[in-house]
């Protein structure tokens, strides 16, 4: 018989205001096996843990139930406290009477009844708990970073600087990401390339960093410390070792009509191309959908002009398999498509552009050589209108519910740069709110208004109306003046919402990392573990976790690196002892458990068994402890009840159900 102690936490008023904690204590004392019960204001505090320690020692407790917050929050805290007092940590059960009870109920009587039931179920489980001992697994001292933008670059550099090898997998032909497309950066207005390209060079030259560009993660298996990843290196059609990056092939390529991804489709590129001049690696790829040689078999000019003989039309995709201890996701973002916002005439007028397109237009290496001009007729605009929150903070399902966070600042930047370079051009910004919470951000915005005379109008735009004379009429509201505005403009710039890279869904599935309704990767804890995924060994860097600007991205990239380094620095990891096992006398080798196991942890062996004196060889399921994550899918699938999960045995679950229904 167990000797169980029940500890009921008030969590200040979080629990105690809705749950009668004294009543829970009183009821606990009537439960089988319970020899001690008490409540305390903050059970997780030093003093609270001391209470637990004392009770274990004095009352010779063999098991604990802590009625408190979610086990995601403090299960480890209480297990450690129990272990310090000499108890096996797996003899501790948490009854979640905060998230599952006090926070979601208002009525004290109802909530108390539910808290008592949850406590009762936990006691029933502890009565059947057995001490468990975690095993050990090794750590592969190598990290994978998915995504080669500023987030991935910074994470890779930080991990490599700590002495661990890193691989970067980048889908496009070059690292650099969105930041390489930007002209200037707020709030200091330094040139984006000038601060990014040295980092790109550093990553490229670092002896511990290996970059796979034009490559994608194909599959991920294994678990924290021991992931096995297949990387597809797409056929570049150019030999990386031979190419000197001279660029003659791109000049001579006759197929020059493909919209340039880097310049957001504002101009075209050749079929053999590097996305931009400072690309890393400076080795082009052949876009086989655009290449005349691949489409018709004729041409081959690039091969003829290549002095180095680097063109290889026969190259095929290559799969590289590599082992990693930690994986950092840094897949970044894109702007939303504007097809649901046709009131802004984006699809109807060339002079309605997105902010990222403006970024390319303002850039010296962009499609207009850095001259601000209308794409319809090449004329310099005299009236510019910026529209904020296009698809951000959107109440209906056309856009995104969240604030994209960067638009207020980059719009202030664009407005200021235009007023500075073209003082004759008037700039008007329509906004819902101007949000500038960052170091030197509000000062920056105020400079745009006060020193550069940018006209900010609080209100949204209802329609952008292209005029037969080529101008645009912007119809909006001035909420401070309480009047309708009809403003003629030469160019309209839309601050389109940002959204996570669409590929992130696929990657999250491979990593079994969770994502939210907006496809942002979920952190393990919104406040306390913001750069870790709930899936062990997976870390988050940059906008894949939520909208953020460059300084924030770089900080988070560093934080993700530190977490990854903390993992890689360990020689061994304790494994979860709550794994599945099959009872060889009950198993009939039907394979159903192996079919549902998401980790490939179940195999079959022919084994000699002694079934009530009958010796025979049977096909029996065997679970690999190192691979099993204890999800329990096999235990509920097993038709003969042979599969059981340690720490969550079938008997325990049913005892809990019985206790709840009692």
């Amino acid at each position, binding site marked *: 018989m167990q000797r169980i102690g029940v500890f009921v936490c008030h969590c200040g008023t979080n629990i105690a205001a809705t749950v009668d904690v004294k009543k829970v204590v009183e009821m606990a004392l009537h439960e089988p096996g319970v020899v001690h019960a008490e409540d305390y204001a903050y059970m997780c505090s030093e003093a609270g843990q001391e209470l637990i320690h004392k009770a274990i020692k004095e009352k010779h407790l063999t098991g604990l139930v802590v009625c408190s917050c979610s086990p995601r929050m403090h299960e480890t805290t209480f297990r450690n406290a129990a272990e310090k007092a000499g108890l096996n940590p797996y003899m501790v059960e948490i009854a979640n009477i905060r998230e599952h009870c006090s926070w979601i109920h208002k009525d004290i009587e109802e909530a108390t009844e539910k808290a008592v039931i949850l406590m009762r179920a936990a006691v029933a489980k502890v009565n059947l708990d057995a001490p468990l001992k975690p095993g050990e697994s090794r750590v592969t001292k190598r990290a994978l970073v998915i995504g080669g933008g500023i987030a991935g670059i910074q994470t890779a550099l930080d991990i490599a600087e700590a002495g661990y090898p890193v691989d970067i997998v980048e889908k496009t032909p070059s690292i650099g990401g969105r930041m390489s497309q930007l002209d200037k950066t707020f709030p200091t207005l330094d040139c984006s390339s000038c601060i990014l390209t040295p980092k790109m060079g550093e990553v490229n030259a670092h002896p511990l960093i290996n970059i796979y560009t034009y490559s994608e993660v194909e599959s991920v298996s294994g678990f924290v410390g021991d992931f096995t990843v297949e990387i597809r290196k797409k056929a570049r059609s150019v030999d990386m070792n031979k190419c000197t990056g001279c660029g003659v092939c791109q000049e001579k390529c006759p197929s020059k009509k493909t919209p340039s991804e880097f310049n957001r489709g504002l101009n075209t590129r050749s079929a053999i191309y590097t996305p931009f001049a400072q690309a890393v690696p400076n080795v082009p790829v052949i876009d086989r959908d655009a290449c005349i040689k691949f489409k018709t078999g004729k041409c081959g000019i690039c091969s003829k002009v290549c002095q180095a003989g680097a063109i290889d039309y026969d190259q095929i995709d290559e799969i590289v398999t590599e082992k990693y201890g930690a994986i950092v996701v840094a897949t970044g973002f894109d702007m939303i498509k504007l097809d*649901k916002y046709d009131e802004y005439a984006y699809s109807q007028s060339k002079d309605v552009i997105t902010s990222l397109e403006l970024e390319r237009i303002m850039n010296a290496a962009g499609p207009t050589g850095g001259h601000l001009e209308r794409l319809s007729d090449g004329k310099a605009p005299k009236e510019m209108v910026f529209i904020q929150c296009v698809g951000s903070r959107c109440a209906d399902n056309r856009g995104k519910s969240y604030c994209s966070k960067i638009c207020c600042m980059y719009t202030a930047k664009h407005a200021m740069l235009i007023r500075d370079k073209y003082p004759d051009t008037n700039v008007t910004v329509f906004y819902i709110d101007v949000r500038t919470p960052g170091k030197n951000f509000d000062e920056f915005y105020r400079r745009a208004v006060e020193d550069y005379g940018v006209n900010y109008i609080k209100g949204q735009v209802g329609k952008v109306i292209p005029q037969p004379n080529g101008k645009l009429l912007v119809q909006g509201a001035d909420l401070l003046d309480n009047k309708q505005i009809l403003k003629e403009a030469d160019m309209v710039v839309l601050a389109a919402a940002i959204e996570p890279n669409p590929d992130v869904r696929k990657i999250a599935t491979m990593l079994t990392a969770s994502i939210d309704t907006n496809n942002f990767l979920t952190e393990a804890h919104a406040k306390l573990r913001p750069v870790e995924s709930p899936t062990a060994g997976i870390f988050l860097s940059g906008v894949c976790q939520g909208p953020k600007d460059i300084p924030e991205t770089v900080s988070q990239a560093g934080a993700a690196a530190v977490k990854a380094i903390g993992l890689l620095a360990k020689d061994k990891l304790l494994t979860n002892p709550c794994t599945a096992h099959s009872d060889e006398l009950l198993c009939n080798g039907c394979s159903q458990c192996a079919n549902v196991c998401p980790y490939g942890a179940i195999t079959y062996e022919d084994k000699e068994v002694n079934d009530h004196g009958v010796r025979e060889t049977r096909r029996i399921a065997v679970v690999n402890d190192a691979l099993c994550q204890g999800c329990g899918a096999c235990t509920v699938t097993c038709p003969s009840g042979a599969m059981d999960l340690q720490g969550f045995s079938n008997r325990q679950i049913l005892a809990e159900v019985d206790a709840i229904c009692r």
Partner: protein
Amino acid sequence: MKYSYFPGCTLKNKAVDLDHYARVSAEALGFELEEISEWQCCGGVYPLGTDEIATKLASVRALNDAKEHGQDLVTVCSACHHVIKRVNDDMKNVDDIRTRANNYMKLDEPYAGETTVLHYLEVLRDRVGFDELKKKVVKPLTGKKIGAYYGCLLLRPGKLMAFDDPENPTIMEDFIRAIGAEPVIYPYRNECCGGYISLKEEDMSKNMCRKIEESAAGFGADMLITACPLCMYNLNKNNGGNLPVYYFTELLAEALGLKEEVDEQ
């Protein structure tokens, strides 16, 4: 294919053309419009009052009649379409209105929004198909530059009418292409003509119509087409005869070679 047909009052009087051309074209395109017997005026405006159901009953009667015939309900007039479609949505989704309307109607089986409401243009797009229509055109309106005037009633509220993208619709442009003409896309095609405000504040409606016509003409339209008698009225009244306005069914009948036949009747 047979559809229940709700013409509406205006199509029996001022907009009799809209109706006639629609019927003969339907026949040529292989579907039949069976007029609902003893239909009543839809009211012309969708009643926003949730506590008043009497104004919705005419629509419910027509919808239920179509249900009893096992047919989809087709309208040509934008206003009727708007009213009937929205009342149907109420009957499907608003418990209170459904209960009270049914209490009043005393039907054998309560009506709960079962009928599908289609605009004539939707029949052309989704049932006949514009490609099929194109094949049946005998007198293509080649060279004509036509501005589609949608107005607001067909498109909004966007989610409920589910007719087309309210900000960038294409159905009428596709129709124009199908009859061999060239659509002119202009930004005011989905703006309001003023509707009934023309009775009270003539200048406001005039101003709105002027913008629509100037914009269409500015982008090169020779004429406008509409599906709405009220839009037709406002546009004609205010445009000084610069830009002719036709019902889309008239051009449809013309393209199908049936116009003279109707005009002779």
